[in-house]
């Protein structure tokens, strides 16, 4: 009871702060919560919005797929051998903290402008945390579990599916949660920098027109989506028994 009450309080608090900021900063800086909601509602009725959203969604879905599958595969490969894990970790973390935006021109030169470049941007961002989390989870599987698998004479595939996978699932989901957010960020930044379509592009063109209302509306839409997805993944994380 207290939790839902507190969540409501938080949402009200955010809306209140937003409203106050609007009063302070004025129409040039922000749009009020109410007018943003109205504007968003209008946008959701336009075909243009949904075309762009679909473009972003397409790129995002592919990128997330690559991040997850690639990340888990890479993480497992690097993690099963302790040495490769220890060697790779600092390299992966260095990539993680790198402003990957800097590598975008390279991606554009390789893939050209278009969907594949965007997917690559997103995957670049999401692949790394999934890899790191998976790798560390594999490395932290207690050796006794491997010995048990060996004693039960399981094949490598059986070991992987019945022992390794359940053991690392919580960590992999945690990494996926992070990868999800970063992939979204990567795709959006890619669209902001070099694209003629997508929600990121919509924000940039709105900015060019000084159309704060649209920027805010899209930003709020994306934020809501991100928070909802994150909450879902968190729930999934908790639902998986450790």
């Amino acid at each position, binding site marked *: 009871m207290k939790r839902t009450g507190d969540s409501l309080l938080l949402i009200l*608090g955010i809306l209140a702060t937003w409203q106050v900021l609007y009063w302070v900063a004025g129409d040039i800086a922000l749009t009020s919560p109410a007018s943003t909601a109205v504007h968003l509602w209008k946008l959701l009725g336009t075909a243009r919005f949904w075309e762009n959203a679909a473009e972003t969604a397409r790129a995002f879905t592919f990128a997330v797929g690559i991040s997850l599958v690639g990340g888990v595969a890479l993480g497992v490969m690097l993690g099963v051998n302790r040495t490769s894990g220890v060697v790779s970790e600092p*390299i992966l973390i260095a990539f993680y*903290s*790198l402003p990957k935006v800097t590598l975008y*021109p*390279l991606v554009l030169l390789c893939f050209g402008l278009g969907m594949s470049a965007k997917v690559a941007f997103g995957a670049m961002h999401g692949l790394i945390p999934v890899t790191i989390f998976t790798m560390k989870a594999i490395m932290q599987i207690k050796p006794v579990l491997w010995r048990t698998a060996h004693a039960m004479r399981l094949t490598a595939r059986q070991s992987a599916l019945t022992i390794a996978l359940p053991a690392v699932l919580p960590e992999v989901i945690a990494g996926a949660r992070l990868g*999800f957010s970063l992939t979204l*960020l990567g795709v959006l930044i890619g669209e902001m920098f070099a694209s003629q379509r997508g929600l990121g592009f919509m924000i940039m063109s709105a900015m060019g027109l000084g159309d704060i209302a649209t920027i805010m509306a899209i930003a709020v839409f994306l934020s809501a989506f991100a*928070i909802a997805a994150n909450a879902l993944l968190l729930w999934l994380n908790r639902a998986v028994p450790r």
Partner: protein
Amino acid sequence: MNRQILSREGWIRLAVIVAFTAAFEALCRFGFIPSTVVLPPTDMAASLWHILRTGEYNKDIISTISNVVASALISVTLGFVLGVILHTMPRLRATIEPLLASYYAVPTFIFYPVFIVVFGVSSRAIIAIAVLLSVVAMIESTLVGLDRIPRVLHKTAAIYRMSTPARAVLIDFPAAAPRLFTGIKLAFAYAFIGVIASEFILSAQGIGYAIAYAYNNFDNRNMYGLMLLVILLATSANTALDTIDRHMQSRVRVTR
């Protein structure tokens, strides 16, 4: 203490990096990767050297570095203060906690255009978004650092009849310091990312801007030289901070 320069894994790592770079170099030199797409690493390095020697991008380099440092300083200070305040107000903290927890799920960067409209294309817009990006990491590290101060240290402070300010300075702060430094490390990394991304998307100066400009003008030489510069700057700064972070963690008590 290990007296080796590098551990066994460290040598392997070095060998792997050298091998990859050499392979990449070979692929470029033998034409498998066209030079219109990527330059060989040695050419990138030569370009970087040229850039540094002639100083033609000095203005941009200084702009980026000062923006990063300014953003990091602001978010560390602001994050610390907000963290301390939240820690003293548990009810407020509990209410805000979900917001903090899901903060990094939101692609905060999409609010950059808002700052552009407000501040125009300027350092202020860049610093604003970079701070927005990194401050929460510092708030969370501060909260965790204060949480993790063992209760027995507070009891000890009580035995010494220390006032709350004295305790805060002499016991709370040093006890939380390793965690606080982790926050500084994270805030710096996020600030760096925020600044470079902003300069890239829309800016009047800075290394990110210079890379985008070079890209738009098909100037691969300078573009790759500058990209290499960013990679080197980011990696060395983050590694240095990480090393200090590890050192501080090793001083923390070994739990019984």
